[in-house]
């Protein structure tokens, strides 16, 4: 009975150890995943920056004029600009 108790104590210690290791492993996995997501967030943010600037370039008055010219459209002057 005493040997059984000793083995039980040992088993419980091993179990506790394994649980701790598993928890540490999961924690490391989660931290690694967080790191990966963080890196992904930065990459996506940088991609967004690039898109924003591309959009800004396309929205610029001169870019619109050049685009219209390239497509063969005439940029009609505002009515107020006609000769009197």
């Amino acid at each position, binding site marked *: 009975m*005493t*040997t059984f*108790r*000793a083995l039980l*104590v*040992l088993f419980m210690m091993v179990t506790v150890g394994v649980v701790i290791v598993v928890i540490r492993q999961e924690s*490391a996995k989660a*931290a*690694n995943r*967080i*790191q990966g997501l*963080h*890196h992904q967030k930065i990459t996506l*943010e*940088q991609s967004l*920056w*690039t898109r*924003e*600037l591309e959009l*800004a*370039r396309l*929205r*610029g*008055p*001169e870019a619109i*004029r050049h685009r219209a010219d390239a497509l063969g459209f005439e940029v009609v*002057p*505002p*009515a*107020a*600009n*006609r*000769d*009197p």
Partner: protein
Amino acid sequence: MDALRSRSSNFAAHALIGTVMVALLVLVGRLVYINTYHGPRLIAKAHRQQRSHVPLQPRRGFIVDGRGRIIAGTMPRKSVFADPKVIPNKEAAALKLSEVLQIDPGEIVPDLLAAGEHRFFVIRRGVSEEEAERIKQAGIYGLGVFTEPYRTYPMNSLAASLIGFVSPDGVGVSGLEHQCDSWLRGENGAKTIIRDAGRKAFWLADGGYRPARDGFHVVLTIDLEVQAKVERELEATVQKYQAESAVAIVMHPMTGAILAMANYPGYDPNNYRDFSTVRYRNRTITDPYEPGSTFKPFIAAAALAEGVVRLGEVFDCERGAWQDGPRTLRDHHPHDYLSFEEILIKSSNIGMGKIGKRLGNERLHHYVKAFGFGEKTGIDLQAEDPGIVRRLSRWNTYSTTSIPMGQEIGVTPMQLARAFCTFANGGKLVKPYVIRAVMDAEGRVINDFTPSPPEQQVLPEEIVAVMKDKILCAVVNQGGARSARLANYQVFGKTGTAQIAKKGGGGYEPNAYVSSFVAAAPAGDPELVAFVAVRRPKKALGYYGGKVAAPAVRGILGHALAYLQVTPEPMSQEALTALSEDVDAD
């Protein structure tokens, strides 16, 4: 027998537990030993091996126009760095890199050799994604690729002298980029990464992440559509008259908001090193010049306000040459007699000289200062010049006739446009401004700089109405600025053709002029004031303000008023029947 077995079992159990306990004690002892004697050193070593602190750079804020269009922004770019200390053969590494990038080794080798023992040295900024990938695959020891924020100007040269630029390391060094640097730059963050044995980022350390605070966005009053039109007009005018340069301002007369502020020729802030530093200057606020006839309305209004002249009063304009003491004043076109109104419409120097004598130096000086000349306008831009108005004690009898025709005085384009706003807003002196608001990265307004309505009354409203409706409209309908007329809006303004003073004094340069025109529209309820000055147009092609600058102002006002959807107003019969012949008055 049972007792013997039981004793034996107890002994075995005690022995097992004892052995385990001893083993644990030994382990604990070892742990205590390591922690006590080697702990700090080992912990520090482990930190060094496993942890790395990575600075997180904030994104520099945008500079946007009044409609949210980005004028200056930040995007990522790939750059190549080296750790020269660990590179075994720098020359070989540079040669290999030049092969990968397909560039001349001479562009890299000297820099890398000169880098010495630096641990981080940027070899080449702004490589493409493909080049970055090729560098990674080449696996050159001691070389790597990193991503860095990069300031870019999607509108290229548009409003460049106002916006300025940043240095390669992202610090504002010119224009608004410099002035607003504390708002734009944001705050650095940092993260602590735990790395594995292969130095790969494994996880973030507990509490090891402090995000960067991105820079605030600066919102301007500038409207890029108006700005683009202004710059096109300046470029066309400078080329047509083979001039040296031109400047222009468009502003709202009621609020002082600047819609466009342009200098031609300008520069591209994306490649600012390719241009002369002279082009970086915002000459609309830094360079005073003698305004010439564009200054006459201010003195004429002062004379009306002081009651020294009456509407319709006739002046003898001496057939184009008037001997005033030792000095002879001349008109570009001789006139016998001109009414007060005609003096401005025909832009007679002699008539203005006589009006100046009626006012006298003291009142002249008072009104010149009251219109804001000789002191900074208070615009929210750095490096503004106060212009040149000498102290009253230094004025002499020449000043009495020179000042009314815009000589002996230096004004900046900004001062002139701002002073002209008084004719468009009921006589109030506005404070011009360019920065409308500052917003954080989420779009919340941090500072709103919209000014309160102007209170400083320079002229009585009835004088302003007379000047605007009876005189300045006639300058456009009948006078020297007929080329500024618009079909749907009544424009009022004044032309100027000023000679350029010699450097160091001693008279004027021959055949060197600044042709200018300042105007506002629509006369019924003025929405915009526009000023254009063209420096050194080729005389043979034209140099009068009415010929050189007025058409540019017409183009700007016509486009901007329609774009801003200002309700058209019918032209007067007088305006409709006015001639459209070539203009040769100043």
